[in-house]
């Protein structure tokens, strides 16, 4: 269906090719997963399939890419639209129309399908992706996950034979991600559509894949069997980590397979003593954040209502809940980005009301890293950004640069912030916010687009900060990150608090929010591979 024949891509002015001599043949009806660290050339590989590279991006492509017999060198992306659909990383910028239903119909309209056929396919697609209740909604008012589903639906409706997706589930809550993947699974199995997708959250997708391609530094492997690929890959989901630890072969990819093999490991861990009593971080008095009877209204709609919450100084709390549950709004209200309609917000040791003080003082008590970290970045270079941040927060000259160095693995200071990878951009924004040394640090969906390495580093940074006395509240869908760093998990639904408790308890009790290791090891409540490894080490 798709063939790559010695394909290399070099962008204009780039010192090295982004793709290097890739030869691949993807058969029809397969679900192929492209795996690789950030900046490895995954996105470039995906975008060569419909010809956006090089027709749209510029650069030089040598070799040949053919899709369904059409050479992308001779067919422009718009002519390939009937064959290939491409869902981009950030769906909100790709919408052409303004209402869900029109967006779904758009592709078919450009193809000149018959109106009755359009009508039928629109209805089918809306049902398939669960968008029927949202059909009349303006796209701008949808939550991130709903937007992602609308974008995939719009592409799928046009009936392409190949669907290419760049990180389709990274913005979604676990349940919504499962829904999207289930519908992808269905269109692969029932309708024979070929799907190529790149995703960092392997724990969500790898067991759906028929084949895996590993990409690193522009080099790609051939099509591999998923289990074999996971054995070789540098990045792998927790279940594979557990399998490597326990030496299972062949590598299980799904929870079900892993559970079948895990009984021996479980027995061993029972004997190993019961260290599953969490060694909770020593946590201070519950005064770092106090919300009482909070109500937040946005655009005439009550998003948060009757919310009471207190956080202990130096604790790490994750705020979870499905897309559109009000997580971002809550963080925004705490950081005084949105007005509070009713109730009380008090922050820090001296009980500051963030809505009553000037921004200059507010940054001392609360810092928020927004969902789009680039909103915080204005300067031309990373170095200049650090210097302005020092000035903004009245910090010692060089303080931000030092922080950045500690947080990140080393970012080239002459780069433009917008040219950084998603993970590096987050690290820069985090360094900027930390320059104000806020007592309470809020992070909104920080793991979007981060690979396992960057995520692990973020986890370490957050733990170190909490130990130094910063109170952290982070909204995330990423249960694995929550398992790694959180003391406490708060689950929000429809603007109300539904669950609140120690991380281990909440995460292991909820089917949607349980991390992979917990699912494999139940009824024992291990959260991470590292914990299990430590326990085995102790028992040995």
């Amino acid at each position, binding site marked *: 269906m798709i063939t790559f024949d010695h394909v290399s891509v070099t962008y204009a002015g780039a010192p090295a090719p982004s793709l290097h001599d890739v030869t691949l043949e993807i058969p029809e009806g397969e679900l192929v997963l492209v795996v690789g660290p950030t900046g490895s050339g995954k996105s470039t590989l995906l975008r060569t399939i419909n010809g956006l590279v090089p027709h749209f991006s510029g650069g030089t492509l040598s070799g040949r890419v053919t899709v369904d017999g059409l050479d992308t060198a001779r067919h422009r992306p718009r002519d390939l639209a009937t064959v290939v659909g491409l869902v981009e990383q950030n769906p909100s910028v790709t919408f052409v129309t303004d209402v869900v239903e029109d967006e779904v119909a758009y592709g078919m309209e450009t193809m000149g399908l018959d109106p009755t056929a359009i009508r039928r396919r629109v209805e089918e697609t809306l049902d398939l992706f669960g968008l029927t209740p949202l059909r009349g909604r303006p796209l701008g008012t949808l939550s991130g996950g709903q937007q992602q589903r609308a974008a995939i639906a719009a592409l799928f409706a046009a009936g392409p034979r190949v669907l290419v997706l760049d990180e389709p589930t990274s913005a979604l809550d676990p349940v919504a991600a499962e829904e999207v993947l289930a519908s992808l699974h269905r269109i692969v199995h029932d309708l024979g559509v070929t799907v190529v997708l790149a995703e960092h959250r392997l724990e969500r997708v790898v067991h759906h894949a028929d084949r895996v391609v590993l990409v690193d530094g522009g080099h790609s492997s051939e099509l591999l069997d998923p289990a074999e690929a996971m054995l070789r890959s540098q990045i792998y989901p927790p279940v594979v980590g557990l399998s490597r630890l326990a030496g299972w072969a062949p590598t299980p990819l799904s929870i079900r397979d892993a559970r079948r093999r895990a009984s021996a490991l479980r027995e061993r861990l029972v004997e190993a003593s019961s260290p599953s009593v969490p060694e909770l971080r020593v946590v201070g008095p519950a005064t770092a954040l106090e919300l009482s009877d909070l109500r937040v209204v946005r655009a005439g709609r009550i998003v948060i209502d009757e919310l009471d919450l207190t956080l202990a100084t130096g604790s790490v709390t994750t705020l979870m809940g499905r897309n559109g549950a009000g997580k971002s709004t809550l963080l925004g209200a705490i950081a005084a980005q949105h007005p509070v309609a009713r109730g009380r917000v008090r922050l820090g040791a001296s009980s500051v009301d963030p809505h009553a003080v000037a921004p200059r003082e507010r940054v001392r008590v609360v810092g928020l890293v927004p969902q789009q970290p680039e909103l915080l970045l*204005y300067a031309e270079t990373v170095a200049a950004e650090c210097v302005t941040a020092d000035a903004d927060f009245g910090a010692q000259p060089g303080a931000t640069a030092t922080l950045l160095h500690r947080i990140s693995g080393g970012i080239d200071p002459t780069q433009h912030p917008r040219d950084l990878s998603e993970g590096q951009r987050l690290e820069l924004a985090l360094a900027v916010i930390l320059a104000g040394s806020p007592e309470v640090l809020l992070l909104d969906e920080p793991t979007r687009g981060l690979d396992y390495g960057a995520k692990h580093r973020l986890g370490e940074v957050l733990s170190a900060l909490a130990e130094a006395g910063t109170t952290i509240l982070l909204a995330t869908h990423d249960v694995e990150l929550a398992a790694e760093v959180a003391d406490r998990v708060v689950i929000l639904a429809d603007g109300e608090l539904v669950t609140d408790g120690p991380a281990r308890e909440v995460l292991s009790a909820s089917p949607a929010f349980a991390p992979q290791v917990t699912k494999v090891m139940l009824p024992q409540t291990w959260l991470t591979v590292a914990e299990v490894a430590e326990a085995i080490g102790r028992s040995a």
Partner: protein
Amino acid sequence: MQLRPRLLHPAAWWLWGLGLATAASRTTNPVVLLLVIGVCIVVVTERRDPATANPLWGFLVIGAVIIAFRVVMTILLGNGVHGETVLFTLPRVPLPEWASGIRLGGPVTLESLLYAVYDGLRLTAVLACLGAANALASPRRLLRYLPATLYDVGTAVVVGLTFAPQLVTDARAVRSARTLRGHQGTGVRETARLAVPVLETAFERSLGLAASMESRGYGRTVRASSRDRRLASGLALVGLLGVLGGLYGLLDASAGGALGLPLLAVGAALAAASLVVGASRERRSGHRRDRWRWPETVTATAGAVPAFVLVVGSVQSWEGIIATPSPGLPPLPLPVVAAVLLAAVPAWLTPRPREEHR
């Protein structure tokens, strides 16, 4: 009367709005103009599309500003209308010889003020009609009915219409992000600092959108040669220009109605020709086109009647159509009042708009 809730065909609302605007542009009678504004408010309150913002109030505010501006300018500079009733006298500022045509200060008469108010009110009424049409059927929905040959032009306009509000949203997001870095986010220097990130975001968005449109088949030719497309597009553009010119001629009395009607007719004919040429060769299809049924006809007629009555009235110079700026209300021609009130009928005789989805 039980009608299934649906949105009325956007063209019907725009015909209604343009008809009422034509009527309003032909009179300076303040009572008639206020009636027109009232009719707009009533119809919008009853039948506006809940999925989009209501721009009517914005239009009315602009109208109020226009009236206030004209009144202030009249007080300061006069407007050439001389009257008997001097309200008060401003000290006159002597101007040099070469500016003798301009007067600054001096007596302010009731008549000149009334003239300014009536004239401003006329503009406000026209704006109210356009605002009402906007609120009842967003121009984007109307654009979907562009001839098939102009499909891509229509999409480009829709994208453009989306761009400006998004710029505002971006600016707001960047501004509130500024407060996260301890800045107030207000003031001239702050605004200048917002420009770069906002433009960067807008630029990235445009590139993303362009890539997405490209990969979704925007601009591809569907079973038509490029020559046919050019012919049809040319005809359609010239036709639309003709229609616009004709409408202008009809609306603006000074351009002469004589030119207006024929131009409108020729333009409409050309546009129709392009539709035929385009449709026969290009099979661009649309999803869920609203159909034209009797409520649409009622609505369009309700707009056409006042336009017709007032054009006839102004040509035959009925008393009270052009209000003389003198103290006391001008006479009210009954047929005119009846015709304007008739324009409010669509507030009840049309189906309710779709429910708001939440």
